[in-house]
């Protein structure tokens, strides 16, 4: 794994200046590495990690278990991709176990998510059943504990 990618995975800010400074590289070298990662699709994009409780826009998040019929050619792929393309779907995974797809959905409000499930998702031919779970409260978001506990630790400013 490239050292740029390693640093990013540890939570470093995606700023070429900062990454170059920390790694002792030329900025151009880091930019080239980031470009390479994006071009070969190792790096798909950038998203900030928000504390959902601080973003009071009323958005609703849900996790949906979906059972679908596999097809003679392609198995689950065609249906999975058809579902994944919806704007409401943040992530979509093929799962082992009691259902086939696990999808993460966001909507402006509960009604919008309900409408997505009942009118779009459940009506697709090949979708056998759905089970929707609304997220109530986050405790950890992309490795960040909520609430942040680091402030609570009272460490000595200087120690031997």
């Amino acid at each position, binding site marked *: 794994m490239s050292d740029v990618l390693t640093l990013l995975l540890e939570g470093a800010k995606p700023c070429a200046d900062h990454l170059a*400074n*920390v790694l*002792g590289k030329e900025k151009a070298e880091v930019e080239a590495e980031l470009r390479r990662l994006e071009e070969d699709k190792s790096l798909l994009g950038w998203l900030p990690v928000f504390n959902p409780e601080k973003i009071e826009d009323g958005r609703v998040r849900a996790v949906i278990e979906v059972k679908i019929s596999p097809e003679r050619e392609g198995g689950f792929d065609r249906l999975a991709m058809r579902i994944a393309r919806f704007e409401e779907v943040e992530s979509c995974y093929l799962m082992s176990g009691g259902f086939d797809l696990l999808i993460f959905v966001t909507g402006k409000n509960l009604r919008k998510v309900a409408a997505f499930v009942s009118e779009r998702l459940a009506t697709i031919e090949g979708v056998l059943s759905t089970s929707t779970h609304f997220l109530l409260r986050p405790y950890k978001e992309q490795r960040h504990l909520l609430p942040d506990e680091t402030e609570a630790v009272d460490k000595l*400013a*200087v*120690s031997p």
Partner: protein
Amino acid sequence: MSLDHESFVASHVKDLPRSGIRDFFAVVSEMPQAISLGIGEPDFATPWHVREAAIFALEKGCTSYTDNRGLLRLRRAISKYVAGFFGPEYDPASEILATVGVSEAIDVALRAILNPGDKVLYHEPCYVSYAPSVTLALGVAIPVGTKPEDEFALDPAAFEAAWEPGCKALLLNFPTNPTGGTADREKLQRLARFAIDKNLLVISDEIYGELTYEGEHVGIASLPGMKERTLLLHGFSKAFAMTGFRIGYACGPAVLIEAMMKIHQYCMMCAPILSQEAAVEALVNGAEEVARMKEQYHRRRDFIVRRFNEIGLSCHSPRGSFYAFPSILSTGLSDTDFAHRLLRESEVAVVPGTAFGEHGSDHVRASFSTSYENLVEATDRIARFRDDILTEDSAAV
């Protein structure tokens, strides 16, 4: 008439100087907004699986004393870990003592072996407690300087030159706090020959052993003829990020461990049981987390050393520990003035080198046990501070 409390303080305690770090801490604590590179402990919290093991132990009702020597399960786990990492094998029944951190292990080791006036050779700059611990054990501490031009590595010739009649032990700490100096096999072999020749016991604090970035960590007890004359002291504070658990251990010949245990049982009884339970978990399942933290320290080290050299503060690359020890000679300031002015004028805390003994003069200790953001900002501020000092100097001329 008011009581003269001073008259009750033992003279050898009265004569003991306060730690320079303590004085500096008092200044830093007035400036909570400062970026601190003065922290001598990991910035990582103890890995969750270890903390969770302590919680589980508490839930189970593990709230009692343990065997003075520590839980047998812990001593077995220590024995296995030490054999794997350091080399020598120790009998969990008689050759291992769990202690309240390595600090207690140093204290009881010195008290167990020293008669009043016995001399102990130790290298300096070093961790702040070594000389005071010798003094409190009624021994005489003899410093042996390590040199910047050697990157503060072990210098066996200096130990040989410093020897004098009455020397009973060597006190070692490689990798070293505050310099990051290490001891390679060849130098340790020469020191081992010296210890055997002069019939010296070696007390070796190897708390930073796992945090060795270049080459292998060689424990002196692993060399031929040295296990029988070495007390290996180790613990969980640094590599396992468990400073607050206060748990360490000593491995050595049964007679010496028994002597240490006698002191330990009267003054400490045993190490806290919850910390012992956490330590077992750390030894059995902690390797991956230790490797992850070490990798981060390694990259931060490369960054801070490069920055110090770019700034014009000559800095060797510490082969172990999580401290950089740059020279501040180019600023024309003493290490104490540098540290105090840097704190007041640029709000960055580093520790003056002389807090670790006179041989640490003209240097400061900068811990890289902090985030990249802090390291970047702190070193930028140090660069501006140095520029300002040089501008002042040229204006004065």
